[in-house]
């Protein structure tokens, strides 16, 4: 049974656990620091990066502002090219559609290219219930599947595993799923890649049904694009007789020409390459080349709810490059699992609460899983102002407000768990708005300065767990000023 994200604890608890895991910390630190430097170098090669970024943001905004228009054009063009378009309002419906399509082929096994949308819908579990076995073919997804684990990174779902752990997983688990790992497997990345090649080749050659996502869908031509490195994508997209692609509705771009922007931004942001090893573009079906049937499942699953939010909407520009994860100091310490969804890191912190709505303590905690340091916004190739959206979502938790949930506009009340904080913020706001009260509080603190405790009580104890309290001065600045300068404003 594959694991799911259901019932994950709120971010702070899960993150606290992760910070105590030395192996995890070391794995994440090594991986993110490696890619950070390389991304910076790859980006610096293009003198027009900022112009590309501006164009990308504008193309995505144009698409989102006219999404109904582009979706219907896309449908028209995919259909004309021999494909079939399906619409799924939510995860269950997408899973039902895919299960039905696989059943109709009479097959009970499918090969899968790494796809965020099918992680999001929990497709593998749904297929399993229907007696269909799904083989993940991306190396990292394979590691995750064999270990009965959850992905923790958008690009490299097994980033939390080091090479030694991967070797052990291959050695112990490959045999349960097919061809066992070679005898005497080492932890050299090249040997691990070779083991995956041998293990999966049999599956590719036998596969009749392939399941994928897509990085882009071109409305003007009906073309789908998959960007990858290993060749497992090409295998799944070209060898099977039936191809089913599950794609979020926000993945549309208007025109063929728009790809010139994204195919420059994505590889450099993602794997820090000038170009990734393989990019496949296909339009419907082609006689005597590749699958004879192509099904495109367009997935909403909360995307239209995000679209309805004028500030949060920009999260739908995301092209899933994972640059924001790789630079995020919080992600580096907390790891991907703490974010409780297939979308970890800064983008997950703004995407998950919007896709799922104010569902649980986890979704409420995600907008606060950031220091607002802004490193994510700086590297985002589609210029999503993640800190701005985080603040906006914090407001929704703290003060409540209008949200759209499953297409229905509602008003949410401030989160229940926050009454103490709200009272404190109310008191602080009042004090700050009455400088005489602020002055009195300062003097009180000044007089009590000798009582400076090593540990604070209540929630503020979290400060003194790892930090000394500052010394409170005997005299505030404003008292010093009025003592030495009088009322000279």
């Amino acid at each position, binding site marked *: 049974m594959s694991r799911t994200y259901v019932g994950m604890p709120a971010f702070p608890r899960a*993150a606290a656990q992760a910070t105590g895991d030395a192996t995890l910390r070391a794995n994440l630190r090594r991986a993110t620091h490696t890619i950070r430097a390389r991304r910076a170098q790859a980006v610096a090669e293009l003198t027009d990066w900022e112009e590309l970024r501006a164009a990308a943001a504008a193309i995505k905004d144009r698409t989102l502002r006219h999404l109904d228009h582009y979706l219907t054009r896309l449908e028209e063009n995919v259909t004309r090219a021999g494909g079939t378009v399906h619409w799924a309002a939510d995860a269950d419906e997408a899973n039902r559609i895919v299960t039905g399509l696989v059943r109709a082929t009479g097959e009970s096994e499918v090969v899968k290219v790494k796809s965020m949308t099918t992680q999001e819908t929990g497709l593998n579990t749904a297929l399993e219930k229907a007696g269909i076995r799904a083989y993940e073919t991306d190396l990292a997804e394979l590691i995750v599947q064999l270990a009965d684990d959850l992905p923790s990174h958008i690009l490299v779902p097994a980033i939390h595993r080091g090479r030694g752990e991967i070797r052990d997983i291959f050695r112990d688990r490959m045999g349960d799923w097919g061809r066992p790992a070679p005898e005497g497997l080492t932890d050299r990345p090249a040997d691990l890649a070779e083991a995956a090649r041998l293990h999966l080749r049999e599956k590719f050659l036998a596969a009749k049904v392939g399941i994928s996502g897509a990085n882009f869908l071109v409305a003007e031509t009906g073309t789908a694009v998959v960007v990858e490195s290993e060749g497992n994508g090409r295998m799944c997209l070209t060898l099977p007789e039936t191809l089913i692609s599950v794609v979020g509705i926000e993945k549309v771009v208007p025109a063929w020409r728009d790809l010139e922007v994204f195919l420059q931004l994505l590889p450099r942001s993602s794997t820090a390459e000038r170009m990734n090893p393989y990019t496949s573009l296909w339009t419907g079906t082609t006689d005597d080349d590749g699958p004879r049937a192509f099904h495109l499942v367009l997935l909403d699953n909360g995307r239209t709810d995000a679209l309805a939010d004028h500030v949060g909407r920009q999260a739908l520009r995301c092209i899933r490059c994972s640059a924001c994860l790789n630079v995020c100091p919080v992600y580096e310490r907390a790891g991907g699992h703490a974010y409780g969804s297939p979308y970890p890191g800064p983008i997950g912190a703004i995407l998950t609460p919007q896709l799922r709505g104010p569902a649980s303590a986890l979704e409420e905690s995600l907008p606060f899983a950031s220091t607002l340091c802004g490193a994510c916004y700086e590297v985002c190739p589609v210029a999503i102002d993640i800190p701005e959206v985080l603040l906006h979502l914090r407001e929704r938790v703290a003060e409540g407000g209008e949200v759209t949930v499953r297409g229905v506009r509602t008003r949410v009340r401030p989160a229940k768990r926050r009454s103490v904080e709200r009272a404190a913020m109310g008191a602080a706001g009042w004090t700050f708005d009455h400088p005489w009260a602020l002055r009195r509080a300062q003097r009180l603190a000044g007089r009590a300065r000798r009582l400076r405790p090593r540990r604070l009580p209540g929630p503020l104890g979290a400060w003194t767990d790892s930090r000394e309290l500052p010394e409170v001065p005997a005299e505030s600045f404003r008292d010093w000023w009025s003592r030495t300068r009088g009322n000279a404003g």
Partner: protein
Amino acid sequence: MRVGLFVTCVNDTLHPGTGRAVVTLLERLGVRVGFPAEQSCCGQPLYNTGYRRRTEPLLLRHAAAFRGYDHVVTPSASCAAMVREHYPRIAARAAADGRSGREAAALAEATASVVPRTYELTEFLVDVLGVVDVGAYFPHTVTYHPTCHGLRALRLGDRPRRLLEHVRGLELRELAGAEECCGFGGTFAVKNAAVSAAMGADKARAVRDTGARAVCAVDNSCLLHIGGTLARAGSHVRPLHLAEILASTDGRVP
């Protein structure tokens, strides 16, 4: 030229020395400094925790307090960023929420009046006064932590570094991973204490590894966190606001 010192609530309450240093420094450079007592908090702690509506009265108060000053100068990159980056958003949101014309207009007017006159200290020194050598003497080893708001919101660039490089006797030590957040993040420090502490520990280690006697920054809230972490670890590295170094002419560590 009349400059209003926007000292910030954190400095007012916990780091008055930084405020005094700014006064000393600016007056030494011939600037007339005033301190409007009506000023309070810019609203950042509330806004960053999600209490946008409760921030509005503080926005209005802040703008009113500094009416009549040619420039508003603050020794805090994050408070400057609050005014310049978020005040316009707060005003725009009030209008977008369809609030009464008068309320929205008052926020818009207050924002328009204060935002263009607001400078973080190093911006004011380098861009407005046009000085990089402020006549300071500080014969100590110092490392510099560029805070996130200074680096990415205000884009202070090399202004703080150029000022430090012109301080006589000062030896600047490079900080590894300087651009990485220290982990303070306002209420983040208590809401996500474990991650905040882990980030702080890494920053503190990098600071100690420089062997510098002091770590300076353009924001005392970050220094509160870095300094508190250093102190807990038994380190004697002093957290110092950049203004205190620039104000020094006798070489003493304040």
